[in-house]
């Protein structure tokens, strides 16, 4: 009982009824504050039905909703992180990994699958922002390369959904080199005439945007996604100016010519399969 309730005469005290609603059935849209029914939000691919705000999506939900139902094969499940530097700040890197693995149920921040979209065979990979901010370390780089090699071998397109804070500091220079590594495999795809579509979702920053994410034959962004090299706070501190409205948002990038288009998540399957089928001279399924 709070001090205020105690002050009230007992007659007008109301007892708080215990909530009968289980946890997580309702949630609030972070953009418009409307209370949303969770099941409906999930049916709508985590896009707010009231204001179209695109909420972040974990990697598995992303790929499962993007690929056709049925035959899907996960790629490079066996690749797992190691702590080469024995990195320790306020916490051990090892412990951070274990914790992230427990929260997400994934080995690391990238998930890769082979499957189809509207019948069109392709390889799709997705970053998981819940796994240490989707940061790119050795495992992300290696899984990306292995996924790209499957695309190469089968002559099918590669689609990447990125959501990342950048390179993973806890792996030191090894993580920086993943930028060079992922860019190198993309030259092989490019020379083999295999399309690579990069879909940048909220947020795509730092080393990930400055390597694989900006190297799409087609660069796509989700509405209002934050995309850039340096984080807004770093820029603000450097230039000591307030940043312009909408700075580093998908719409800003479109206006400045950095991306081809913005696609609503609910149309992603149809529009990407259309573009890819044209690039590959295939009839649409």
């Amino acid at each position, binding site marked *: 009982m709070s001090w205020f309730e105690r002050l009230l005469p007992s007659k007008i005290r109301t007892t708080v009824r215990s909530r009968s609603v289980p946890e997580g059935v309702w949630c609030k849209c972070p953009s418009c504050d409307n209370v949303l029914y969770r099941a409906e939000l999930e049916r709508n691919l985590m896009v707010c039905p009231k204001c179209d705000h695109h909420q972040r999506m974990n990697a598995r939900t992303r790929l499962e909703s993007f690929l056709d139902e049925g035959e899907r094969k996960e790629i490079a499940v066996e690749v797992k992180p190691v702590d080469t530097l024995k990195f320790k700040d306020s916490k051990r890197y090892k412990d951070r990994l274990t914790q992230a693995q427990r929260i997400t149920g994934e080995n690391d921040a990238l998930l890769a699958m082979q499957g189809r979209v509207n019948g069109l065979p392709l390889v799709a990979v997705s970053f998981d922002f819940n796994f240490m901010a989707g940061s790119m370390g050795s495992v992300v780089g290696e899984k990306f390369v292995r996924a790209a090699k499957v695309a190469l071998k089968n002559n099918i397109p590669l689609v990447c959904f990125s959501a990342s804070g950048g390179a993973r500091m806890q792996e030191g220079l090894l993580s920086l080199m993943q*930028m060079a*590594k992922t860019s190198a495999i993309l030259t092989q795809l490019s020379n083999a005439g295999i399309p690579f579509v990069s879909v940048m979702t909220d947020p795509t920053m730092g080393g990930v945007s400055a390597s694989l994410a900006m190297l799409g034959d087609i660069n796509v962004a989700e509405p209002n996604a934050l995309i850039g090299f340096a984080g807004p706070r770093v*820029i603000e501190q450097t230039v000591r100016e307030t940043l312009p409205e909408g700075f580093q948002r998908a719409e800003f990038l479109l206006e400045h010519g950095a991306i081809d288009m913005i696609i609503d998540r609910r149309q992603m399957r149809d529009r990407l399969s259309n573009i890819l089928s044209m690039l590959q001279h295939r009839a649409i399924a």
Partner: protein
Amino acid sequence: MQLNFLDYEQPIAELEAKIDELRYMSNDSDLNITEEIQKLKEKSESLTKSIFSSLTPWQITQMARHPQRPYTLDYIKLLLTDFEELHGDRTYADDTALVAGIGRLNGRPVVAIGHQKGRDTKEKVARNFGMPRPEGYRKALRVMKMAERFGIPVITFIDTPGAYPGIGAEERGQSEAIARNLFEMAQLKTPIISTVIGEGGSGGALAVGVADHLMMLEYGIYSVISPEGCASILWKSPEKASDAAATLGVTSSRLKELKLIDEVVAEPLGGAHRNVPEMAKRVKQAIENKLKELEKIPTDKLIKQRQEKLLNYGAFEG
């Protein structure tokens, strides 16, 4: 030139000051103190040796940023003859934080590219402290593609705190400019040799650092994030920069151990700035040796080797 000493070099600085004082006195008087001076010089040398034999990663970071450290244009001047600087990205501007040009290394043409910090305040500002904007990276790429067309090898010098985090840089596609360089350098049909001469600051460094042979000067650093940046993110306090430097493994010896760089070029006693001509001589020798090797490799094989090297970066299980 008056030498500039870092905090941990103070004992050396004091000795050197004494030597200077004695020299001054000996000019004034008939006293013969040459012997005394010689003794002190020897002492200073052995002191320098002992201090430099056990530098911490954070001390090395400070050395990499030493205000008197030789910069790209200093090396270009000492390594190359007939150098002609090439300006501009042909689209937007000439970024002076990243210089590019063509010159001769022992008579044979090479393209040289590198970050350039400024020496005095005015030049530092003009060169944006060696932090390139997208047009800098695009100039570098344009010049590298030219080198490829004419069959000229590329040598790059890395020395930057990082790519510039500014509004205009973002508007003009800083990410894309860096990514494009990584992509093109991974398949450039001419040998590339990169040397970290000072600070290798993250993506801004790597954007001219994808190479067949990656070298580092002994007291250079190369890191995914500055120790200060890492400390303020992970330790929530920039004062922990020395811990961050140690944990990140930013030094040449550690990176060689991790097989992330190919060669370490030893520095003269007390650091590159104490004997710039000697440092330049060693860098020149290392580049020449490697270039001779790389030039014998047919282009197809060279690209294949480079790709394999890039694809092998990483430590994981499975």
